[in-house]
């Protein structure tokens, strides 16, 4: 077991890798939260966003919020089911951590280069539904209950298009391991011309849009934010949480956004691969490249989040079953046929 070819024993590498991942999520969530939720949203609404805390452009705002939440009291309603309610945020957080294990950030920088990478990532990402339902049911609050039921319907309904959107990529790259997909995109060629490799977003544009739309629904972001629709059910399943557990939910929300953006960047935009960069340099620049691509994908998702109103439950289900899934199937058919022909 080695990282960057330094073999430093099994135990320590595992510790280093888990430490890196444990650091990655809060950091990623903070950066996402600050850049998109504060600054970009503010400027889109012709205001400045936080400017005071931390001097230059209020960078300390989110960290300050985090500290505030940590020192707040953790309240459990009297009729609530304490243990289930206490455990829920950790389950939602768990699914975010597990997704990062397979996302490669360089030729050799990956926590676990699984061969069934994509399959594993999508399977694990659906764990958060359990956490949401636990939170909604256990907090003995009518609004939370409605929100939990809505969340189940929505998250399950959008697992299917999410997976189908990825199948096109798997067909084209021939492998399910994320590392393999990235390499396929770097070395591939579009009908012979391999100037910039073959980022699947060009040929899989339908798959990419489906993935973004389905990921938006997985993250319960507008236009699909019924479970946390503040004007209808006041904060949804998080309504009874406070203090550290609410912080966990918040971090989980942005961590998952970071994870899905990373997945989309890896599957469709070629992960850490840059057209002219090979060997050792790829290792050095890899993470930066991935971060830039993740930021771009996240920009698309948050852009939709700040523009669109939210749909109603039945419209949302209708969109998933009547539109997204048929389109995904057609996309797979076309990709398969072209794969056979070329």
């Amino acid at each position: 077991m080695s990282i960057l070819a330094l073999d430093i024993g099994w135990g320590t590498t595992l510790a280093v890798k888990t430490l890196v991942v444990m650091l990655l999520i809060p950091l990623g969530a903070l950066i996402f939260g600050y850049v998109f939720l504060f600054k970009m949203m503010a400027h889109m609404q012709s205001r400045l966003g936080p400017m005071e805390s931390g001097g230059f452009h209020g960078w300390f705002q989110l960290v300050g919020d985090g500290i505030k939440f940590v020192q707040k009291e953790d309240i459990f309603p009297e009729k609530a089911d304490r243990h289930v309610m206490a455990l829920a945020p950790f389950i939602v957080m768990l699914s975010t951590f597990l997704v990062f294990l397979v996302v490669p950030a360089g030729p050799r920088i990956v926590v676990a280069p699984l061969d069934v990478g994509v399959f594993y990532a999508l399977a694990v990402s659906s764990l958060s539904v359990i956490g949401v339902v636990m939170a909604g049911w256990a907090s003995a609050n009518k609004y939370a209950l409605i929100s939990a039921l809505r969340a189940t319907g929505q998250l399950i309904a959008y697992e299917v298009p999410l997976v189908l959107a990825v199948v096109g990529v798997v067909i084209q790259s021939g492998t399910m391991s994320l590392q393999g997909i990235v390499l396929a995109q770097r070395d591939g060629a579009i009908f012979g011309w391999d100037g910039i490799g073959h980022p699947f977003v060009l040929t899989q544009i339908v798959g990419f849009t489906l993935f973004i739309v389905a990921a938006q629904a997985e993250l319960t972001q507008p236009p699909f934010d019924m479970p946390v629709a503040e004007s209808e059910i006041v904060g949804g399943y998080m309504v009874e949480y406070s203090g550290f557990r609410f912080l966990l939910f918040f971090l989980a929300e942005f961590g998952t956004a970071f994870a899905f953006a990373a997945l989309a960047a890896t599957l469709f935009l070629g992960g850490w691969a840059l057209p002219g960069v090979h060997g050792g340099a790829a290792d050095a620049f890899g993470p930066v490249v991935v971060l830039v691509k993740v930021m771009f994908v996240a920009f698309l998702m948050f852009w939709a989040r700040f523009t669109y109103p939210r749909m109603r439950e039945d419209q949302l289900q209708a969109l998933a079953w009547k539109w997204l899934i048929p389109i995904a199937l057609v996309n797979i058919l076309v990709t398969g046929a072209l794969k056979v022909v070329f």
Partner: protein
Amino acid sequence: MVMREVKGMLSGLGVTLRTMFEPAVTVQYPHESEDPPIRARGVIALKEESCTVCMLCCRSCPDWCIYIEGHKEKRPPRREGGRERTAGILDRFDIDYALCMYCGICVEVCPFDALFWSPEFEYCATDIRSLLHDKNKLGDWMTKVPEPGPLESGAQVKGKK
């Protein structure tokens, strides 16, 4: 039909993107502040000399938030043969800004033009009791009372305050 929907979705995105690159409208208050127009009703200033303690402002205030106490004093007659005049002297003139609704009836109803509006608004206080401004505090506000601005063309200029 679908094209109209897609166009609708994209035009919405266009609006938010365009606004993102336009300058924000926020005025960062403590550092830079928007100065209120001349006529803004921020605080009421009292010119003590012209007040004759006639209690009209106190009577016509809907919120009953003006407290006045005065007494009578003898004044030498204006002409030497004339009889002595009695003039009202103000002991206490408080306006309780915790109750005041800034309607301006007192300023308008005062027959001796002793009350003026000033656009000054930075007099918030931590303790509600200190919102009861007494005579001299209202006197200090007199320095902040601006000259009434020129009127729009076509207005009939009257000597109104």
